[in-house]
């Protein structure tokens, strides 16, 4: 009887195609594994790549042999747009740089402009800026942590994070009138004061938000799958991270204690009592833990700020910088003229240049500005924290597994808007 395991006539391709069936003539069990390199495009619309990033990956088996990162062409011309509007009209554009922590971009920009003019804003405005920034820091980290959990297979943490975000957004909407792009600051102070009873509401919201953060923490931090996929993956050494220009929680995860709020306190951060968490290894798990811990510290800061906040004006009483109150505009000629000049010509920023940085959710948000003495900026350069961090991804991930790319890309928290400007 014929051997049933052997085909009577083995298939012999007439002209083997080297790309697909190079080993077709060999018996199936003895065939080599495909050793050819494979090219994979991740993005521009992959569920795990944020924004329009395209990662061109060259795979050898499951290892990444070569990787090139293309940021994508979302470029909106942020600088060019700013150069053609007045200083105040730049504010809505800055909101859209990092759209999950709009207030921090907003206030960072204002801080640089005020430094260029040489202004000291009222104390109450400084407190409001601290509160707004820290609220949005929690908001940003929640997005990052929730998305990391979800992309590694845990949907529940993401839902908790979104619920907490929703609560924060409600408070932000009460404060600014908008949920996402707040446009809240003004040169010389704030747009408006805290609403009636808002502080008590924020305290209650924070209680609930922290409960949810602890829930996320409990679900992820000791989860076997999550820990296995994030621990010891995406490691960067402290020296490399500094060389690439990393800042923020990603740099602190490598063990470098650098936080602008402590190094060069601005606004009233020097009156706040908070700790800066520092990691050890610089892997994905450390970066995740930094964010969890920073949310708890931000919670502390907001509670202190709400307790300390003094009464007083929220914007400078200088009609060359801030719009005059409406009764003055309607009743006096000086008011009308100031209003007209501010709206039509903008704030006259004296000629000069400045580089100023604040600690945004992802790191140092730097602004380099040149003014030629008119109401429009001559040049506005933004140093987005995500840009240098993203530039190091090929270095981190080369030679590692393709699966490690996902948690690495998540924990560096690249935001398309600011990287692509």
């Amino acid at each position, binding site marked *: 009887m014929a051997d049933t395991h052997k085909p009577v006539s083995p298939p012999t391709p007439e002209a083997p195609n080297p790309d697909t069936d190079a080993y077709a003539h060999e018996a199936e069990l003895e065939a080599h594994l495909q050793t050819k390199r494979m090219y994979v495009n991740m993005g521009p619309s992959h569920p795990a790549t944020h924004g329009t990033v395209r990662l061109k990956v060259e795979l050898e088996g499951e290892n990444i042999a070569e990787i090139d990162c293309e940021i994508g062409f979302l470029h909106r*011309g942020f600088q*060019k747009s700013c150069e053609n509007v007045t200083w105040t009209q730049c504010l809505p554009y800055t909101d859209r740089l990092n759209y999950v922590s709009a207030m921090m971009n907003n206030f960072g920009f204002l801080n640089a402009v005020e430094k260029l003019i040489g202004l000291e804003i009222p104390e109450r405005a400084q407190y409001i800026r601290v509160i707004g920034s820290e609220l949005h820091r929690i908001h940003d980290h929640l997005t990052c942590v929730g998305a990391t959990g979800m992309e590694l297979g845990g949907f529940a943490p993401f839902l908790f994070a979104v619920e907490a975000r929703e609560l924060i957004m409600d408070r932000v909407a009460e404060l600014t009138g908008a949920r996402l792009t707040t446009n809240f600051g003004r040169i010389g102070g704030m747009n408006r004061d805290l609403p009636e009873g808002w502080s008590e509401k924020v305290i209650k919201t924070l209680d609930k938000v922290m409960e949810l953060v602890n829930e996320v923490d409990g679900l992820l931090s000791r989860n076997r799958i999550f820990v296995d996929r994030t621990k010891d993956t995406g490691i960067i050494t402290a020296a490399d991270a*500094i060389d690439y220009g990393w800042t923020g929680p990603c740099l602190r995860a490598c063990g470098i204690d650098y936080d602008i709020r402590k190094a060069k306190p601005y606004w009233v951060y020097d009156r706040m009592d908070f700790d800066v968490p520092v990691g050890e290894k610089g892997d994905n798990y450390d970066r995740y833990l930094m964010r969890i811990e920073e949310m708890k510290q931000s919670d502390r800061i907001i509670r202190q700020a709400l307790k300390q906040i003094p009464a007083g004006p929220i914007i400078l009483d200088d009609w060359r910088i801030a719009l005059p109150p409406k009764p003055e505009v309607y009743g006096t000629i000086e008011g009308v003229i100031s209003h007209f000049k501010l709206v039509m010509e903008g704030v006259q920023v004296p000629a*000069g240049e400045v580089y100023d940085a604040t600690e945004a959710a992802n790191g140092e948000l730097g602004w380099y500005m040149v003014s030629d003495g008119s109401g429009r900026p001559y*040049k506005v350069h933004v140093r987005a924290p995500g840009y*240098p961090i993203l530039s*190091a991804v090929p270095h981190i991930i080369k030679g590692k597994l393709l699966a490690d790319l996902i948690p690495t890309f998540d924990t560096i928290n690249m935001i398309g808007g600011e990287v692509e400007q």
Partner: protein
Amino acid sequence: MDRVTAQFPEAVAERYLDRTGGAWAVIHAEHLPKVAAFLKDELDFKLFTSIDAVDRLHLAENDPRFEVVYFIYSLSRHEHVRLKVRVSEARPELPSITPVFRGADWWERFVWDFYGIRFSGHPDLRRVLLYEEFQGHPLRKDYALRDRQPLIPERPIKDIFRGPGTSGVS
């Protein structure tokens, strides 16, 4: 900054303080890699922050036309250092400092992309935010605000307001 001047007296063209108290040094282009390496290795300015350029076309003082600015930070002393290099329009080329700071890689590509300033010795000088087929360098002041170069033809939509302001329209 005093130590840089002491070490390389021929490299520093000018020094000044801006109104916010930031110290600046204007460096001659050919000495840039040397000064950067000295700052990094000897003076502990290790954190590379950013690079950008200023097109001084409409400013009173506009010769040479471009200024490339470098921001480097010292983590041990919490100090920024600001360097400036002036580049002419006729020969927009600078030595790259990528061998010194790897973080300069993408920033130099950014400056090439938007201002058309070349960096000799850069390993991979390509456009970074715009596409390869793009003509010109859009952050130059003589690049018109409303110039459009779509890769795919745009649908004809009339009476749509595009872009900020109406001044500077070509």
